């Protein structure tokens, strides 16, 4: 009967562990679908033949055009090219109305962070996938997950709470993650590098 005394404690322990490891992380994020289900796979297929740089380009002066504007899509999509319902929505709701697509940016850094793609791509030679995952080969866009409290995107905060068994891009893009990567590569950093 001595063991019986531990049952309530054990149940409480298990409930909290389950909640803390599984339920809370799920409940912590609000999921929103992107306005259009864009297929990277279709656009980079042999048939279409586009490359990443056609939409996400780094100009000569170092400016990075992260999310393409409507003017990038419009030349090919003034009329639907296929039978996709999503493409029809693109043409009807955005291209024909000349309305920008309100993409939800997975990797949007907060206001107090200055980040430049140029040194990371050109100098450090880091691949896009390192931070953004295998995005270019997916057939549909992931849900945009936003922390209900901090309002940060999940790509910024990281997918794994303890960072075990997570791919590099799932580790997150918070200050510690940037700093960790810089230290690994022997990059000098100061507060004013990222916080102007």
């Amino acid at each position, binding site marked *: 009967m001595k063991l019986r*005394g*531990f049952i*309530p*404690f*054990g*149940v*409480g*322990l*298990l*409930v*909290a*562990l389950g*909640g*803390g*490891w599984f339920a*809370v*992380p799920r409940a*912590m994020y609000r999921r929103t679908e992107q306005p259009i289900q864009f297929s990277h796979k279709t656009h980079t297929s042999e048939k279409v033949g586009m490359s990443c740089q056609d939409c996400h380009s780094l100009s000569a002066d170092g400016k990075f055009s992260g999310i393409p504007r409507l003017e990038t899509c419009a030349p090919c999509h003034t009329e639907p090219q296929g039978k996709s319902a999503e493409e029809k929505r693109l043409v009807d709701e955005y291209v024909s109305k000349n309305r920008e697509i309100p993409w939800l940016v997975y990797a949007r850094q*907060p*206001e*107090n962070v200055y980040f430049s793609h140029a040194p990371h791509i050109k100098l450090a030679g880091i691949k896009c996938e390192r931070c953004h995952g295998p995005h270019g080969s997916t057939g549909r866009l992931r849900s945009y997950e936003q*922390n209900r*409290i*901090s*309002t*940060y995107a999940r790509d910024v905060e990281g997918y794994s*709470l*303890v960072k075990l068994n997570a791919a590099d891009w799932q580790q997150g893009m918070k200050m510690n993650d940037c700093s960790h990567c810089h230290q690994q590569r022997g990059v000098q950093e100061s507060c004013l590098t990222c916080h*102007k």
Partner: protein
Amino acid sequence: MKMNVTRRDVLKFAGGGAVGAMLTPAPWRAIDDLAIWTQNWRWIPRPPKGPSTMRNTACALCPAGCALQARCIGGLPVSMHAAIAASPLCPLGLTGHHLPYHPARIARPQRVIHAGGSTRRIPVPLDTVVIAMAGGIAEARRASCSVAVLDLRPGRSLSWAWQRFVAAISNGVYIPAPGREGANLTALQEMIGSGDGVGLDLDGVRTIVSFRAPLAEGWGHRRALDRLQDGLRLIQVEPLRSRTASVAQRWLAARPGSEAALACGIANVLMADRSVPFDASYECFTPDTVSALTGVPADAIVATARELAQNGPSLVIAGEGLGRHAEEAILGLNLLLGNNALVPRSELPAPYPDEALIAPQEIDRVPDRSIAVLLVDGSGGDVRFPWPLVRRKLRVDALVVALSPFFAGSAQRADYVVPVLPYLETIHELPTPIDAPAARLAIAAPLLPPRSSAVDPARFLRDIARASRIDIPGDWKTSEELMRARVAVIQAKGEGTVTTIADGSTKAAADFASADELWESLIAGAVWDGQKATASFARKRPRPALPPEKELVPLKPLIAIAHIPRDVTASAAVSPVMTKLYQESGLRRTGHMVVINPATAGQLRLTSGAAARLETAAGSTRVVIATDHAVMPGVVEVSAAPDAAALGEKGGGEASMIDLLVPDASGSWQSVAARLVEA
């Protein structure tokens, strides 16, 4: 089997839950997210998103007026860059765009009550301040006391308006800021007996002997610093190895207060070498005698004099606050050398032609206890100087009103503070810097929308004048209208050239079709330079004034000297980013740190980091000792730090260190007898 759930079971369940929760990342993550949430409250201002643009303007935080480019996002400045790559901005200039958001910013006029070492501020309507000023002026007129304006940034169009204002009052006094650059040139002007101003033409100069002038620390328009890169030889006379002394070819560590004797010693060598006409009155200043007085080796004095004579054209420059006799002896060396670098310089034209202006009066020439009403105009920037210099000129019941964007610096001494717009929220005028050979005008354009509660100083002046029934010519109502009037005078004269900093192109002022066109060019970042005088003062050769006998008596055992870096004192408030950096890095001295030579520390039995009391004739304050070989023995370096009150630290109580440096009988507040005792 029936199980009864007892209260104990519930508590055990809760305990298990608590322990379990601690073993998950959830509570720790929640703490982190909550911390981020507090940074994203809706009422926290956010910079707008928008296109990135660059705007050319000038930095108005100090008289140098460095050309700069402001990077703007959505029209608001987010970073400052030097427009000329070879002239990088100082820390103050780099963070100038933070100042409009400074926590010490004043939103409304305030009555300041000073009692028991603390201050209390009460918001009041602007009319209350105007009525108090008008009442004070009326009372001063009745009592035959002075009404004074202390202009912390003289030479502006608004300065003309203040001069005109006090000229209309029977006992009006216009006082330019003590410690400002170029204040000592009036001594030279009087020696020459010239009605013109004195300009320094550094273009052809090959050697400069500087007596404590901070040439490499943001002096003038930084022309000397540029010339150093072109091979100019610099000999720095200073009791500490400042940044200027570090870049100089020779550093002469002369005892503070002995500068006049050193100048006379140099003159003695020049005469002995027959480089200048002989004067028997200098015979006693032999290199050995002067060496004993100054601490500078005799051969260094001889070498300096010979370099001045042989590697000409040469120029001798005095820093500020050395005292009248020292300034005359030092600057007079230029006349002895027949210096071509000293040129007559016309000052910027008045916005309105007017004969009734009152002449500026230096603070040391104002009678003690004579001022009943003092207006401190800090709308153009701040200058750090010992406040007792001003306080002893005030009557006991004097009314002090300050115009300032911040409750910091001189504004803390006032009875009323009137908020004005800071740099970047309004147009600022940058009059001629000390190292310009001709008149010069730059204008800093506003890049931010103004805060509606701030007061235009010109409008405030008009209000006081109206309330005091004083008539001032011109139909201007705002500071901008005053500046435009000055630009119109320049355009009408058609003299000088306008240089566009962005592309280096120049255009004659006469080629501007209208005053508006010239104004638009200046507001876009161009600079107007007047015509250089063709003549110089070279042929005038009055001998330098000799120091009085008392300057030749043995020096005090310990002398406190002021070190006032412009990049932390030109604005009453400094960016919180920089003050935090200064506090944590030691890049600048803190408000209560003094620096002495390790030998001096040994003699006084003090160690680095020890607490001590710094005592002068003006009082005492608690300080922390730092030791450094860069300070000569027998000297205490007292640095002006970012204003403690503007850092959010507790003000009042202990005296500010700079305020302890009250002038001695010869008027020098740069060298004051002091004592350091263990606290």
